Structure formats: C-alpha cells, structure tokens
C-alpha cells in the first residue's frame, strides 16, 4: 500500500524514500523522532544502572573494611586496558556516524568493524578476569570460597590483615554491575554486527543515518558507565 504509484512519478513527485516509515512526513521528522527516542531510552538506562550505583554506595558505607580489602583481588592493569579499549571504541563509533553522514562507505565499514573489534577485546579481557576469579572460588554472595592460592597472591601488606566477613557481598556487587554492563556490551556488539550488515548493503548515507547515530549514542553510554565502574572497583 505504500509503494509509490506510477502516477506520482509521472507527475514529477519525488518517490517516497525507501526507509521512511509510513507514519512520518519526512526523513527529517523521522530522524528527530528516533533521536528523541534513543535519548529517552538512555535516560531510563541511567536509572537502571543508578539503582546499582546506589546499592554500591550503601554497601560501601555499611562495610567499608570489606571494600578496602576486596579490591586487591582486582587487577587495575586489566581494568585500565579495558577502559582504553572502550574509549577508543567510542571514538570509532563517533567516526562511524560522521562517515555515514558524509556517505563514505568504506570509512563507515572500517569504523563499524573497529568498534565491534574493540568491544570484542573488552569482552575477552572480561572473560579472562571472570574465569580466573571463578576458578579460584572468588564468587558471589554465599558461594564465595577463595582458594589458598589466590589468597597467597595478594600483596604482602594485605595478607596479614584479618579477612572481613561477607566477602561475597563485595563480589555480588562486582559481578552484578560489571555483568549487567557486560550484557550491554554484548547487545552493542550485536547491534554493530547488524549495522555492518546494513552498511554492506549500502543502506546508509547523508539522507539516512539514524540507526548508526542511535547505536553510537547507546555505545557512548555503555562506555560512560564503564568509566564510572573502573575507578569505583579497581582504584578507590
């Protein structure tokens, strides 16, 4: 029903753009709406994580000794590596939007692929961190049973200190927050695969780049959340 009729073309009316949804009048109106929508979605994401950040603050206030002690289980160098990977991926994500707007197809594909790859690096490091901890029994809540080996690997100054109660609570918060963030990274990777496929089909250009823009905005938020998580868990 939305196929442009022959009559319209004959009268010289511009055919309806391919990716203009039926209920919008113009591509501009459609872009405004999708931008508005993604910002509103990001607002709800901030509150979604906001609950966990609040929980972090409350548990840290309830058990300060626990948070001081447990952070020695985390390797700040791995965290820093991941921070760099995500910041770089935000740059390539922003670049992909620019390329789409300018109609640079090769640049767009490269920027999308780099973003995807950097997200893969992040998840790879995360996998190493998680598997190392879980292998040594550094699990969440009541399942926390740290092995002798990992306790011996703690810095000299820490080894002599009494082990606080409820060590698992720290790791519950750690796994919840980084895990939820990790799920967001995985979703982002899926979205970038989808964008790469569409970019290969030549869908994007100066007239239509809304999806690239929206996914990049989402990706910047995922990056931002990590920028808060890194110091809260690894540094302070």
């Amino acid at each position, binding site marked *: 029903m939305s196929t442009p009729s022959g009559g319209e073309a004959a009268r010289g009316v511009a055919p309806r753009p391919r990716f203009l949804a039926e209920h919008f009048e113009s591509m501009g109106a459609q872009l405004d709406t999708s931008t508005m929508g993604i910002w*509103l979605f990001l*607002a709800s994401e901030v509150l979604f994580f906001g609950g966990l950040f609040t929980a972090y603050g409350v548990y840290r206030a309830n058990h300060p000794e626990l948070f001081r002690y447990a952070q020695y289980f985390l390797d700040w160098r791995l965290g820093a590596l991941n921070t760099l990977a995500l910041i770089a991926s935000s740059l390539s994500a922003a670049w992909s939007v620019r390329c789409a707007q300018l109609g640079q197809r090769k640049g767009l594909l490269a920027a999308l692929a780099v973003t995807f790859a950097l997200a893969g690096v992040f998840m790879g490091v995360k996998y190493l961190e998680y598997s190392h901890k879980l292998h040594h029994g550094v699990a969440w809540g009541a399942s926390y049973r740290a092995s002798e080996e990992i306790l011996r690997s703690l810095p000299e100054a820490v080894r002599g200190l009494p082990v606080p109660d409820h060590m698992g609570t720290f790791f519950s918060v750690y796994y919840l927050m980084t895990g939820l963030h990790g799920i967001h990274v995985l979703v982002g990777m899926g979205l970038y695969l989808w964008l790469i496929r569409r970019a290969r089909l030549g869908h994007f250009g100066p007239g239509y780049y809304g999806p690239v823009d929206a996914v990049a905005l989402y990706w910047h938020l995922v990056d931002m959340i990590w920028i808060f998580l890194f110091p809260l868990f690894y540094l302070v």
Partner: protein
Amino acid sequence: MTTAAAGTAQGPAAESYLHHGRGLRSWLFTVDHKRIGIMYLALIAAALFLGGVFAMVLRMNLWWHGGGLVSNDAYNKLFTLHGAVMVFLFVIPGIPAALGNFVLPLQLGAKDVAFPRVNLLSFWLYSLGSALFVAVLVVGGVDTGWTLYPPYSLEGARGLGILLALAALFVVGFSSILTGLNFIATIHTMRPPGMGWFGLPLFLWALYATGIIQIVATPVLGITAAMGFLERLFHLGLFMPEYGGDPVLFQHFFWFYSHPAVYIMILPAMGIVSEVVSVFSRKPIFGYRFIAMSSIAIAVIGFFVWGHHMFVSGQSKWASLVFSFLTMLVAVPSAIKTFNWLATMYKGAIVLKTPMIYVLSFFAIFGIGGLTGLFLGSLATDIPLHDTYFVVAHFHFVMVGSVLTAFLAGLHYWWPKMTGRMYGETTGRLSALLVLVGFNVTFIPQFFAGVAGMPRRYATYAAVFQTNNRVSTVGSFILAAGLCLAVGGLLASLARGRRAPANPWGAASLEWSAASPPSHHNFDRTPTAGDPYDFSGLRLVSEEAGYVRAAGEAP
C-alpha cells in the same frame, strides 16, 4: 480489488481500522495504535476481573470476625495477588496503555505513535508479564503482600512463586517504560501544524507527565526485581541480612518506584477529568496552564516523597521530617487542579451524561482520598495509623476509586470513537451511581475501623469491628454490581447500540474530527489544530449526526 462499486456507494471514505485486515494474526501483529489499545483494554479488563474476584473472596472471608471461608494461608496469598494484579496489571497500565494508546495519536492528528513496533513490543511484554502473574497463581501463589519485602519474601520456603512474581515485575516494568517513551517522543515530535505546547489537550499533558515517571522511576523497579531474583537464586547478600545484605535498601528502591507509580495511576486519570469536565460543562477549561503545569509539578515532586512509606522502618528521623514536608507539597498542585475543575463547572451548562457523572464521582472520591492522605503524610498522625485499615481505605480512595471512576469516564467518553457505537445512557448512568455508592459504602467503614486500631493484612479481626466489615462487604457487592452493569452496558452496545456520529459530545479536540470508528490511517489528511477547548462554533445537528462545526467558524 474492484473499487468502482464500493467507491460510489459510500464515497471515498476508507474502511474503519476494525475492518482493516481480518483474523487473529492481523490483531496480534498489528502496529496500529488503535488495535493495540483495544487489545490492552481487553487484557486490562481481564486483570480487573481477576483482581476483583480475589477482592470479593477477601471481603466474604471478612464477613465473620474469625474468618473461615478460606484458610488463613490462602487469605494471605489472596490479598497478595489481589494487590499485585490490581496494581501492576490494572491500575498502572489501565489508562495510559488502553485509552492513551488509542487516543494520543488521534488527539495529535497523527497516523500513529512515534514507534509503532515498540508499541507492539510493549503490549507483548505486558502479555508475558500477565502470564507470569498467572503462573504465580498456578504454582501456589505468594503470601508476602504486594510489596514483597525481604527478608520474609526471599526466605527459603517461597521458591518458585516469588521468582515468577519478580520476573513478572521486571517484564511489565519494561512494558511500561516503552509506553512512556513512545508517548513522550510522539508528543514532542508529531504535533500537527497549529498546535504549540499550550495547545495540547490536557489529557496529553497528563500522559506526558506520566511518561516522565514511567521512564525515570520504572527502571529502578526493574533493577530491584532483578536483584531480588538473583538474591533468591544465588544468596548474593544484597537484601538478606544473614549474608550481609540490607533489607531496608529494598524498601527504599521499591518505594522509589512505587510511590511515583501512584502518580502514573492518577495523572492520566486527572487528564481524563480535565477533558470531560470541560466538554460536559460546555465551557472552556478554566486555568489551562495551571492544570498543565501542575501535572508536571506532581511528576517532579512525586520523586522525592517515597520515604513517607517508611516512617516506621528505622530511617533517620530527619529524613522522615523532609519526606513529610515534601509529601504535603504534593497537595498543592493536586488542589490547584481540583479548584480549576470546579471553576470550569461554575456557571457552565452541565450535561449529566455518564462520563460526567463518573467525573463528579471522581471529585467526591478524590477529595476524600486526598484529604485523608494528609493524616498519613504527617509524621505524628502516621505512626498510630500505620498498617491499619485507615491506610487501606486511603489508598483505595486515591488509587482505586479515583482511577476507576476516571477510567470509566474515559471509557464511556471515547467508546463511540473506539467502537462506532453509542452506549445506552440509562445503563451508564445507573452503573455510575452504583459504583459511587458501592465504593463509598465499601471503604468509608474501613477508615473508622482503622482509626479504632484494626490492623491490615489479617484474615481475622477483633469482634468489635464486625459491623464495619459487614457494611464494607455489602458495599463491595454494590460496587461489583455497578462494574458488571457498566461492562454489560458497553458490551451490549456493540450489538444493539446506535451508530455513533464523528462528534457525539461536541468536543473540540482533534480525535472528534476523525470518523467513528477512525480509518486505519486516522485522518485523510493531517488536520490543523485549533483551541481544544473552544466549543463556540459547534452546533448539534441531530442525535444521529452529532455536532458539526458551523461554516465560517474557525478552524
């Protein structure tokens, strides 16, 4: 398809949205906001019925002070599911998802909401969440109260039921977020030519304010449900003290959502009242900007009052003091609305059709509910009243009585637009009276029982309260009869109702310039908006033809 014959008989008018596509699939996979609204309406009505049946069993059990109709354990599960089903499946989504979905794009002269597929996703999530609540019932229910407070709710014995309930909250929460997101984006970007922000019908201002709360508050419920779910499965030590968790944090999180959620319930109700009171007083709404801005004020202040649910939780007394003060502040915009509605009626030509009678009931019920809220917002009076039937009566007045009467007002008001049929006025009026009388007879005795010290959430009570409870139970039957009559009258109109004209009430907002029922695309061409409360050019032609704007009158 051959259009020659059809075109001449009925003119070029498009077929209605009800006949645009046939079969179950054309409904389940539709992206038409009108069909999604109708499907929501059907499920929400089913939720009201289910929650209502639970309520009637509760009321019958309370006929005798010793209980006895159901076991005490079953009673606990019934009141839990009554609360959860009514709150999450009926009152919160009721007006925005069912009526809002149908009306919002029409009032904007738009073809659809901003994100039609997201809208359908929202409906599916709601359906899935509802199914999960039914599954809670199937696996034996939960007995925690709808607030699901840990540590009790997350202790060993309550396994599958609580997990399903938390999963259901998570899922319906996202349904609500997506609806709010859609509405705000639509109102921002899809207003028609001629409609500035202060040309919006007040129902849309109300939905806008509701959308803010849905987007900002609901994710916190989502994450809380997820945390509770994982806590129960893996003993994370988040909310359970035995593992180092903090149960009061759950209460803070829960009420950070669930208090603003009462404004998700009441703001759209107030929006309907603003529309109906003006149309049926035949007078422009009084104090348009004050009503619009008070919706936003309620949405904003509503975020900072959650602690008034926790005056006895052990939170800091200074926090309680601030929460108490802020709670009083919400009364100001609520009163602004009420006075503006009354001023609208002053010297108006009031037409006592069914929607208006429901709105007058709303004024009475919301007045009582709002004023009794002041006792609970004040620290000193809340302490003795906490967890008594006074609280039960208060929140039923604001959450149930007010929202239900406004919902029924809106349903009758837009019914001709939704179905193309006029409901029977006599049945409608009678149902409105029964609901008003039944509601008050049910809940006013509970105020007295509460002040005298009857605690909530018990299957049995002291014999001295038996009269209060029996009057209350009789009232609940009157209320149920009123609701059945309203539903029966509306359903009967589908078969026997008179065909509705485009504008049966003489209203000026854009939905009444579309056909009744509207075509698939709502409007043949995008209409130009005028003042939604200027009724001066509208003349009643006949009952069959409805109101028509006289030639030469704007717009």
